[in-house]
């Protein structure tokens, strides 16, 4: 059983069997515009919740992607190194950034569910 959570920094995390797959939301890619480069961490890196984990660059500017939860990076999406534009095409599926092995599943309780995130985006605009 997988469940997807969202952050106020517009990341999503899909958790299944203690592994969280992380990306940025479709709303975020829309705001950023054309993505031209994604910098990903090496597997093996330990991150704390809220740490800067990845960088995503549009034509105009660089933006940080924060770790929604703490844990060890176990995989980075190599497809993004070749084709950063995949983030614009498939932000919430194919263009995941990293997978993290959760060290503290309780942190998920601070995150939003899909409906909560939709409400949050609405309130921000």
């Amino acid at each position, binding site marked *: 059983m997988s469940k997807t959570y969202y952050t106020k920094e517009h990341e999503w995390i899909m958790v299944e069997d203690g592994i969280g797959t992380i990306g940025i939301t479709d709303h975020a890619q829309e*705001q950023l*515009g*054309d993505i*031209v*480069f994604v*910098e990903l961490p090496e597997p093996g890196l330990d991150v704390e919740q809220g740490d800067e984990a990845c*960088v995503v*660059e*549009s*034509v*105009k*500017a*660089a933006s940080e992607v924060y770790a929604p939860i703490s844990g060890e990076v176990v995989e980075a999406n190599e497809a993004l*190194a070749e084709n*950063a534009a995949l983030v614009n095409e498939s932000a919430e599926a194919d263009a995941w950034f990293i997978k993290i092995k959760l060290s503290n599943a309780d942190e998920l309780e601070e995150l939003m569910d899909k409906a909560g995130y939709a409400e949050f985006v609405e309130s921000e605009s």
Partner: protein
Amino acid sequence: MSDQQGDTPLKRTPLYDVHTRLDAKMVPFAGYEMPVQYPLGVLKEHLHVRSSAGLFDVSHMGQAFLIPADGEFKTAAAALETLAPGNFAALKPGRQRYSQLLNDEGGVLDDLMVTRLGMQGHEHWIYVVVNAACKTRDFALIKKSMPDNVEMKILDDMALIALQGPKAVDVLAGFAPKVGDMAFMSSLDLPVSVEGSEMWMHVSRSGYTGEDGFELAIKSKDVEQFWQALQAHPDVEAIGLGARDSLRLEAGLCLYGHDIDETTTPVEANLTWSIGKRRRESGGFPGADKILAQLKEGPGKKLVGIRPGGRAPAREGTKIFSVDGDEIGIVTSGGYGPSVGGPVAMGYVRAEHSAAGTVLELEVRGKRLPANVQPLPFVTHNFYRKKK
């Protein structure tokens, strides 16, 4: 995402309603609310200009006439030459030059376009276009430097739009056939008929993209109708400031406040070509001592094109190191070049590291990334050259 600037209300150009109807993303820029991109997006807008024709609103820029009461062009040209190193006195009617207003240290206060009008009876008039962020200071400086018999008329009632790209000439010739054979950096003043309405435009064959194209000054009251008519052409897309920036960066063109400012001279910025030959000998402009010395001995730092080796863009402010690890400069403009298909940048390096091909290192997020000095422009200029 963008910083709001104080409490001063943002100004709007006469095309503001057009941009919002086009669903542009509006951002504060130089005190104006300007379109940074339209729904097409920066990347596609950029590529569209390189392959077809793009329409830009640049009405935030400052426009003015300098009108000598004695009817002598040289009266206004000589006064302007006390502020800038261009050879304005040699301008023929209808011709345009790029130049810079300088401070006493030879630093750049602003860059500007200077045109001698070609219209009969107005050949003694000068038309200047300056950057939006600098226009108040520029106009105060110019006014102070003009003799009493030269009137400076700020054109607050004029909009400015640019039509750029290889198809720009065909699109504009549909309204004004005469533009077809205009020389690069020349101008015309002529009436145009847009859907039955007669209006007047000052058109120059110039721009800020590296492509062939035109800049059109039109009365604010008429500009919306002309914009709509141009945009209705199937080859034309509206283009925002985002693509304007990536286009000019690939074309190796300086952006004021970034690649040039009060701490850089035209010689350091590779703009020596814009300093008139006569002026290089006789001086007579602010900072001439320093600039003439730099021309003779070479400047200590130089603006160069930089091609990062990987895929990561190096943004403005990125520190530049030699392969020996010495800090030798800083990136002043950097991003992704959609036509190049990779990151591109410009920055100042110490002169001994400025030769094309020199290997550099860029410090991006704490990591040193390899890069090369590359001759500018990154994309070949596609300016119009008259057939012989």
